[in-house]
C-alpha cells in the first residue's frame, strides 16, 4: 500500500474521525458504542494501510515543496506509527469492558485519543524541530486532558494539574533550546543542523550543544528519566486505567521516536558532551526507580515506578549509541517493542480486573486469582515475566540486547548496574505472581464479562511469548528474528538519502 495517497489518509483519517466524533458527541445520535467503534475501526484501517510498508527500507519526503521538507516518511516512522496505532488499539480493546462500564469516557475522550495519536504520528515523521514541538504539544495536551477528564475524582484532578504544569514547564526548555539552535544555524531542519556541525569547527557550535542540552531536559522529563521523573507515580495513579496503559505503553515510545531521531540525526557528532549526563541520569533513574517500585503497595503505582526503571534501561541504550555500529539503536528499537506490548498488557489486565471502577488494586486483592481465573492469571504472569526480563519472553531479549550493546560500547559497569536492577525487579514483579498462585482466594469469584477484551489479553500474551522465540528454539516460526529483521530495515532507512 506504499504511496502518497496512503500517507495522506494516515495523516487525515485520525483528525477527521476525531472531529466527527467530537461533533457527533454533541447531538442525540451519539452513544458510547458508536464512539468506541468508530475509533477502533479507524485504527484498524490505519494498520491495514501501513503494515505492508514494513517489509522494505524506504524513505520519502512528504510534500517536499508544500511542507518545506518537514515530514519524512521512512521505515523508521512506519514502524513507530504502527506501534502507536497498535498501542492505542490494544489499550482500547483490552480496556473495552472498563470503558463501557465507566462513565468517564465521553465523546471527547475518544477524539482526544485520536488527536493524541495524530500528534504522535507527526512526531515519528517530523524532520524538523519546530513541527516536532507542536506535534509533541498536540500529543501531550491531549494526554493531559485525558488524565483530568475524570474530574469528579480529586486524585485525577491533582494528577492533571501536576502533569499540566510540570509538562508545560518542561516544554518551555525545548523552546529555549530550539531558539539557541536556530540562532546559531538559522534553520530548524535536522539535516541542515547536522550539515552546519560538519562544516564548522567545534568552537562555533557551542550554542548548539547548549541548545541540545535544553532539548534533552524536555525529553528526559517526558520519558520520566530521574532528575525530572518524579511526576510519574501520581500521574499514572490518577489517570483511569486504560489511559494509564495508553500513556505508559504508547505515549512513552512516541517520545523515544523523536529522541532517537535527534540522537542519530543531529547529536551523533556532539554526543561526547552528553554521554556523562545520560549515564548519570541512567544510574539515578535505575536506582531510584527500583527503590520506588519496591516500596509500593498499590500495583498501579508499582507499574508506574517500574516504568521509570524501564526508562533507565532505555537510557543505557541511548548512551551506547555510537559511531561503531547500529547495534545500540537496534537494541533500543527491540526494547521499545518489547516494553510497549508488555506494559500495555499488564495495565490492560488491571483495567479488566477493576471492572470499570476506579479503585486501588493492592497486592492483596489479587490473592487466589490463579485458581479462579487460570487463563487471565497466566497472561498476567507472562506480562510480569516479560517486564522482569525472564528468559523465553520478549522482555528478556530486549534487556539482553540493551546490555550487550552497552558492553560493546564500553559501558560495562552501567550494564552490570542494569542487570542488578533487573534482578531487583524480579522482587516486585514476582510478588504479583506469588499473590496469584500461592494464596487462597479471599472473596467470591468475580465474573469479568467481555470476551472481546479477554481475547486481546490472550493475543498479546501469546505475542509476548512468540517474540521471545528465536531460531535457536523454534526454527520455523522465529518471532524475535522477524523483529530483528524489521529493526534492521528501519535503521537502513534512516541512512537512505531521500529527496
Amino acid at each position, binding site marked *: 500500500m506504499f504511496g502518497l495517497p496512503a500517507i495522506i489518509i494516515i495523516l487525515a483519517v485520525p483528525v477527521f474521525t476525531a472531529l466527527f466524533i467530537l461533533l457527533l458527541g454533541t447531538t442525540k445520535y451519539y452513544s458510547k458504542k458508536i464512539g468506541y467503534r468508530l475509533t477502533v475501526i479507524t485504527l484498524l484501517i490505519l494498520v491495514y494501510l501501513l503494515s505492508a510498508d514494513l517489509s522494505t527500507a524506504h524513505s520519502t519526503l512528504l510534500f517536499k515543496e508544500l511542507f518545506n521538507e518537514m*515530514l519524512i516518511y521512512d521505515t523508521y516512522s512506519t514502524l513507530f506509527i504502527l506501534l502507536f496505532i497498535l498501542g492505542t488499539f490494544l489499550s482500547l480493546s483490552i480496556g473495552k469492558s472498563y470503558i463501557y462500564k465507566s462513565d468517564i469516557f465521553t465523546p471527547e475522550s475518544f477524539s482526544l485519543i485520536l488527536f493524541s495519536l495524530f500528534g504522535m504520528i507527526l512526531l515519528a515523521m517530523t524532520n524538523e524541530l519546530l513541527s516536532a514541538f507542536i506535534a509533541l504539544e498536540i500529543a501531550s495536551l491531549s494526554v493531559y486532558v485525558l488524565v483530568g477528564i475524570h474530574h469528579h475524582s480529586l486524585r485525577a484532578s491533582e494528577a492533571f494539574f501536576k502533569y499540566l504544569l510540570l509538562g508545560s514547564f518542561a516544554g518551555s526548555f525545548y523552546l529555549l533550546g530550539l531558539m539557541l539552535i536556530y540562532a546559531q544555524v538559522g534553520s530548524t531542519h535536522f539535516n541542515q543542523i547536522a550539515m552546519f556541525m560538519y562544516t564548522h569547527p567545534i568552537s562555533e557550535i557551542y550554542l548548539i550543544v547548549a541548545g541540545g542540552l535544553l532539548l534533552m531536559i524536555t525529553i528526559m522529563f517526558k520519558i520520566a528519566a530521574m532528575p525530572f521523573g518524579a511526576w510519574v507515580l501520581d500521574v499514572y495513579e490518577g489517570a483511569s486505567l486504560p489511559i494509564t496503559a495508553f500513556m505508559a505503553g504508547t505515549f512513552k515510545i512516541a517520545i523515544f521516536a523523536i529522541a532517537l531521531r535527534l540522537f542519530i540525526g543531529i547529536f551523533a557528532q556532539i554526543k561526547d558532551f552528553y554521554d556523562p549526563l545520560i549515564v548519570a541520569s541512567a544510574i539515578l533513574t535505575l536506582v531510584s526507580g527500583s527503590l520506588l517500585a519496591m516500596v509500593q503497595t498499590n500495583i498501579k503505582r508499582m507499574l508506574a515506578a517500574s516504568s521509570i526503571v524501564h526508562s533507565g534501561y532505555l537510557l543505557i541504550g541511548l548512551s551506547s549509541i555510537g559511531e561503531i555500529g547500529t547495534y545500540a539503536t537496534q537494541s533500543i528499537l527491540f526494547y521499545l517493542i518489547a516494553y510497549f506490548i508488555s506494559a500495555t498488557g499488564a495495565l490492560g489486565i488491571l483495567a479488566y480486573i477493576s471492572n470499570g471502577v476506579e479503585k486501588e488494586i493492592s497486592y492483596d486483592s489479587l490473592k487466589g486469582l490463579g485458581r479462579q481465573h487460570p487463563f487471565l492469571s497466566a497472561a498476567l504472569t507472562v506480562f510480569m515475566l516479560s517486564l522482569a526480563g525472564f528468559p523465553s519472553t520478549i522482555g528478556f531479549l530486549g534487556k539482553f540486547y540493551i546490555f550487550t550493546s552497552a558492553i560493546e560500547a564500553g559501558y560495562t559497569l552501567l550494564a552490570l548496574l542494569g542487570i542488578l536492577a533487573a534482578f531487583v525487579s524480579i522482587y516486585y514483579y514476582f510478588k504479583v505472581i506469588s499473590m496469584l498462585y500461592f494464596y487462597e482466594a479471599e472473596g467470591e469469584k468475580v465474573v469479568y464479562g467481555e470476551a472481546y477484551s479477554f481475547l486481546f489479553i490472550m493475543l498479546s500474551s501469546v505475542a509476548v511469548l512468540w517474540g521471545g522465540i528465536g531460531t535457536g528454539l523454534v526454527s520455523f516460526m522465529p518471532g524475535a528474528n522477524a523483529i530483528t529483521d524489521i529493526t534492521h530495515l528501519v535503521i537502513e532507512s534512516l541512512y537512505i538519502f531521500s529527496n
Partner: protein
Amino acid sequence: MLNEVLFYILSALILVSALVLISARRPIDAALSFIVTLVSIAALFALQGSSFLFATQIIIYAGAILALILFIIMFLNIQDKNLPDEPHKKRDITFSTLAVLPFTVVLISLINKSPLVDQALPYDLFGGIKDIGSVIFNDYLLVFELISILLLVSLIGAVSLAKEDKDVK
C-alpha cells in the same frame, strides 16, 4: 544615546518587576507587576523594530493571558489568611538564582561569542509583519496548520474540563 538609555531603563524595569513577581506575597501584586514585565519586553521588541512581535506581545500576553490570570485570582477570592506561609522565601529565591547562575553566565558568554552579536537586524529586512507573514505562510506552513489543531485540542480540553460547573451554583 537615547536608545541605550531606553534599553537600560527597560531592562531595569523588566528585572525589577520580575523580581516583584516572584517575591510578592499577594497574587494580585504579582499579576500586576507581571503586566509591567510583559509590556517592557514588548517595548524591547519595539526598540528592535520588530513591530509584529511587539503587537503580539501586547495582544496576547498583556491582553488575554493577564485577563485570564486576573479572572482566576478574582474567582479564587484568596484571603490573606489563606496564603501559604513561606518563611524561607528570600533564602529559596537566592539559592535557586545562584543555582541557575552558572548556566546563565555560560549561555550569555556563548551568545556573546557567536557571530550573531555583530549582525544587525534592521527593521526593513526582518521583523516587520510582512516578512513574518511570508515565513509563516510559505516556509512554516505545516507548523501553522498544526497550530490550529493544537488550539482545537486546548479548546476541547477547556470546555470538557469546565463541565463540572453545572454542579456549582
